[in-house]
Structure formats: structure tokens, C-alpha cells
């Protein structure tokens, strides 16, 4: 057991090293770490109270006192952006988390032991996939009623089928492996086979997909907030700030520009990190990467690297 953890630690360090070996990976990691810092230390980083209304200070342009200016009711834009990181990270975590949980359960149930019911379940999830996702999310959120929680439910309902497809596809090939057949011979329960043998082997694909989707989910949530279906005023949320800024845009460009930049940078950070993570975890690509200095990658012979030695 102890060796198992040691191995995992090694694997993790290796992954991190590969991510940090490219400029894209470094930029992505830095952005995500900065975002996490904003989320955790918001009260210390924010120079002002993000909810403090002061009408006499309204629509002040950026100055040395308030770096990003103030909005229509005199709230500090920078502080609101720093606090807004909490909504964004929460939206990404909740949506991707629910997507992984529900999608994995459905995908595993459909793939193992498989058969006609499994097919039927996947046909059903295909309906969700055959639908413009943004439209479905907006329709869902609007019928549920505008609130942060409902927007999370709406986006999650749109998201889980993607993970169900992913897990289903992975599980279909994993269930044919010898160790699964072996477990069957030992008469292990299907639940144990799904969770103990199949699921752990889907996890690296899930991690990559989740990181790539994180930015996407944040964009989704911002769009819902923008049309008034996400976080509700006076919440310090980037999408909601933009919805508010829209009406006064010609008077105060700073209220419209900076929250958008915050969304953009965050989403880009997760996209960069996701791309590097995919490179790091994809065995084929990993081999290519490590071969780079010796330029033998095109040979594509598995195990050659070990033979040559580090």
C-alpha cells in the first residue's frame, strides 16, 4: 500500500514537471494559482469592500486610489473582480464535479456489464448531445428560475452526458482487459468491478477532460449571469457585473472592460493548463515529449526510452 502511494507521488511529480516544461503550461499554472490565491485571500487582497455602496463616488475612472475605478453605485471594481473569482471557481467546480459524478455513474452502468440496457441508456444521453448546449442551459435555467443554484443545476444537466460518453467509451475497452476477466472469474460483485477496476483506469482521461471543461463551464456561467439567469445582484460576479455595465458603457468603459478581461484570463489559464495536462498524461504524447532531446520520437517504439536509459 505504501509503495502504491509512493508510486503515485512519483507520477504526480512527473506530471507537474512535464507541465512546467512548456511556456504554455507555466502560464496556465501561474494563472490558475493566482486565481486560487484570489479565491482564498479575497478579503486581504481586495482594497475595498466589494458591496459598499457610496453614491457620491459613482462612476469614478481608474485612479491611484481605485485602480480600476468604481461602478454606477460607487462600488470598487477591482475589489468586486477579486471577490468575483469565488463565483467563477465555484461554478467551474460544481458543474464539472456534478458532471463527473453523474456522467461516471451513467457511463459505468451502461458499459458494464453492457448489453441492451446499456445501449438504451447511451441512446438517451445522445439526445442531450444532439442539442445546442447553450440553448438548453438557458431554457433550463429560465424554467427553474433565476438564481446561482439553479444556473448550476442547468449547466450540470447540459454537461453530464459528455462525461457519460467519455467514461462509456473508456470502459468499453477496459472491460475486455484480463484483470477484469480475472475479477469476474473470482466472482467479484459488478459494483466492485466497476469501481475497483474500471473507474480508476478512466481517471486520467477524466482529469484532462475536466480541466479543459473548467474554462468552458466558467464561460457558460458568465453568459447565464449576463442574461440575468446566474448570480443575482448585488453579487460580485463577473458576468453580472458586465450585465450591469452594459447600460452605462458609454459613460464608463472601465466597468465593461475589466470584468471581461478577468473572465478571459481565467478561461485561458484553464485552457492552457488543460492542454499541457493532456500532453503530460497522454502516454503516446508523453513518449514523444520525453524523446524530444534525442529526436528518436518518430521511431515510435515502445520501451525504447527505457532501453536507452535516462
Amino acid at each position: 500500500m505504501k509503495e502504491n502511494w509512493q508510486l503515485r507521488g512519483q507520477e504526480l511529480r512527473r506530471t507537474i514537471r512535464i507541465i512546467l516544461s512548456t511556456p504554455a503550461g507555466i502560464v496556465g499554472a501561474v494563472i490558475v494559482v493566482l486565481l486560487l490565491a484570489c479565491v482564498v485571500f479575497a478579503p486581504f487582497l481586495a482594497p475595498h469592500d466589494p458591496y459598499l455602496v457610496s453614491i457620491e463616488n459613482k462612476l469614478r475612472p481608474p485612479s491611484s486610489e481605485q485602480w480600476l475605478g468604481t461602478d454606477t453605485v460607487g462600488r470598487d471594481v477591482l475589489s468586486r473582480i477579486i471577490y468575483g473569482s469565488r463565483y467563477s471557481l465555484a461554478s467551474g467546480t460544481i458543474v464539472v464535479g456534478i458532471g463527473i459524478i453523474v456522467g461516471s455513474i451513467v457511463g459505468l452502468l451502461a458499459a458494464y456489464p453492457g448489453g441492451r440496457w446499456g445501449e438504451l441508456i447511451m441512446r438517451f444521453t445522445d439526445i442531450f448531445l444532439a442539442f445546442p448546449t447553450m440553448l438548453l442551459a438557458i431554457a433550463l435555467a429560465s424554467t427553474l428560475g433565476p438564481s446561482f443554484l439553479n444556473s448550476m443545476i442547468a449547466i450540470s444537466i447540459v454537461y453530464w452526458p459528455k462525461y457519460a460518453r467519455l467514461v462509456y467509451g473508456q470502459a468499453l475497452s477496459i472491460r475486455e482487459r484480463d484483470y477484469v476477466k480475472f475479477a469476474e472469474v473470482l466472482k467479484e460483485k459488478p459494483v466492485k468491478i466497476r469501481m475497483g477496476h474500471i473507474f480508476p483506469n478512466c481517471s486520467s482521461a477524466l482529469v484532462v477532460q475536466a480541466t479543459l471543461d473548467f474554462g468552458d463551464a466558467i464561460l457558460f456561467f458568465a453568459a447565464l449571469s449576463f442574461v440575468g439567469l446566474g448570480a443575482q445582484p448585488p453579487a460580485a460576479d463577473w458576468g453580472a457585473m458586465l450585465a450591469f455595465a452594459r447600460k452605462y458603457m458609454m459613460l464608463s468603459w472601465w466597468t465593461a472592460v475589466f470584468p471581461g478581461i478577468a473572465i478571459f484570463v481565467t478561461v485561458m489559464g484553464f485552457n492552457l493548463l488543460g492542454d499541457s495536462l493532456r500532453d503530460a498524461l497522454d502516454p503516446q504524447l508523453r513518449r514523444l515529449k520525453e524523446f524530444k532531446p534525442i529526436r528518436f520520437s518518430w521511431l515510435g517504439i515502445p520501451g525504447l526510452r527505457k532501453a536507452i536509459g535516462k
Partner: protein
Amino acid sequence: MAKWLIRRFLLLIFVLWGITTLTFIIIAAVPRNPAIAMAGSQSSPEQIEKFNKRWGLDKPLAVRYYEFYAYLLQGDMGTSIRTERPVALEMRNFFPATFELATVSVVLSFLIGVPLGIVAALKRNKWPDQVTRFVSLIGVSTPNFWFGLIILLVFYYLLGGVGPGRVTSAAYEPTRITGLYLIDSLVTGNWSSFVDCLRHIIMPAFALGFFGIGIVTRMMRSSMIDTLSKDYIKAARARGLSLFRVITNHALRNSLIPVLTVIGVLYGAYLGGVIVIEVVFSWPGLGNFAYNSILKSDHPAIMGVVLVISIIYSLVNLVVDVLYRYLDPRIKF
């Protein structure tokens, strides 16, 4: 071919049935009554009861479900609670504007993405390739509604260009034939109207289509690299044809085939994303109609929009599939 088409068509009907049922279930499952949204929270129980009776909300679910399809098959999508007009009529009014915007966005993504992709493929791993990689990263990371706001801010408020909406004033509206202003104005020879419509559609179309430019570029790049490594390209080059001729005459057509499948993906993304863009640019299309219906919990109207957009989305995908098989005869049916 015929067999494949029939199977594809049956699948389409199944998907549409699924989508409508799903929408129906969601709307029915939510205990939010449109009566309160419409009549106000102070309305008396009698008023709500009267409202429910008028719109058939007091009937059992199964009956409502049956009636929904029974009317739908006759082309009747119900009546909008907000505007009190038939939803089918509203769809006919608003749909062309949305379809025009989404189509111009797709065209724009291709017009910009394909040349960029070719350049990136030719200058592989050099700076033009890195630039296009960066542009596509920006494209998928930018919130389109924010990009729309910035475009409006710069080109309308700062530079004094054309404003939001489809035309400057009603005087520029072309005679309605298809409802697609660009086509209507061309057909009727109304040149000033065409220019005005074009100037108005460019901004929202670019805001909507920016996302796709990067995707088309990357697809075109990888497909072009793939094609350029083929023997017939090397043979053409060996015969002394210039690189330009080889690309236009040999490589372009073949490498465009895989890129065409992106059209379906882009239409899906644009028809969904069009709602926020239409709100930003006050574009009088389905998105704005949906937005206003959402605010009033106008269920028949929301159902109508969902249905129309998903039908269009499915049909576009069907057409792309057929086109794909037509362009690449190697694909078996």
C-alpha cells in the same frame, strides 16, 4: 444512399422527439407558474385560476403532452402568453434574422479561418503558426458577449460607426421576401439597403464568429499538413507546378473536406450563443425573443424557440453529412 438517408432521417425524428419531450418534462416539472410572472404576485387565486384555464394549464400533464404534439403536427405551436400571438407566426418573424446572423458568422469564420490555416500549415512551427495558435486560443477563451460589448464600445461609441440593430432606420428595410435582409435587398436591387444591412451585420457576426475562426484555422492547418504530405502533391511539385497552383488546384479541395464537418459544430455553437449576442446588439431575432420570453416565463414561446433552433441544428448537420459523403466518394453508405 437511399437506405442511409432513410436511417439518418429516422434518427433525426427520434432526436427531435427526444428534445421536445425533454423540454416538455423540464417545463412541466418546475412548479413555477407563468400566471404569477404574468399577472403579478398580488393576483388573487381566482385570477390565477382563470389564467390557468385560459392557457390550458389546469389540464392533466398527459393531456397537455398529447395536445402539444397533436397541434404541433398541424403546424400549430400554441400561442405566446406574452405577445398573445401564435408562436408559429413569431417564429416566422424572428427566425430569418437569427439564421442570417448565424450564417454570416459561419461564412466569416471560414473566410478568415481557411487562409490562416493554410498559412499556418505552410509555415509550420514558425511564427505565423504560433500566431494562429495564439489567435485560436484567444477565440475559445473569450466570452462572446463581452467581445460584442467591446466591439460596440470601440466602433459605435468611440469611432461613431453604425449602432446596434439590423438597420439604421425603417427606411432602410428591404421589401420582405425571405426575411433575410441581405438577400431581399439584393433581389429587389435596393443597393443602399444592402450596404446598410451589411454594415450592421458585420459587428455581431464577428463577435459571434470569432470563436469559430480559431477552430477552423486549426482544423484547416492539420488537414492541409496531412494533404501536403501525400504523394500526388509531391508529384505535382516535381512536375514543376508552383506551390500556389498546387495548393489551389490539388490540395485545397481535398483538405477542405474534413473542415466542412466543422460547419455543423459551428452552427450548433452559434445558434446557442446567438441569444447573448442578440441581446448585446439588440438584434431582432429568435435570441432576443427567447430572452424576453424567459423574463416572462412564457412557456409556449420558449418551447417554440427550442424546437425551431434544434430542428435547424439537426437539419444543418444532416446536410453537412450528405455533403461530406458527396465530396468524398470513398465513404461507404
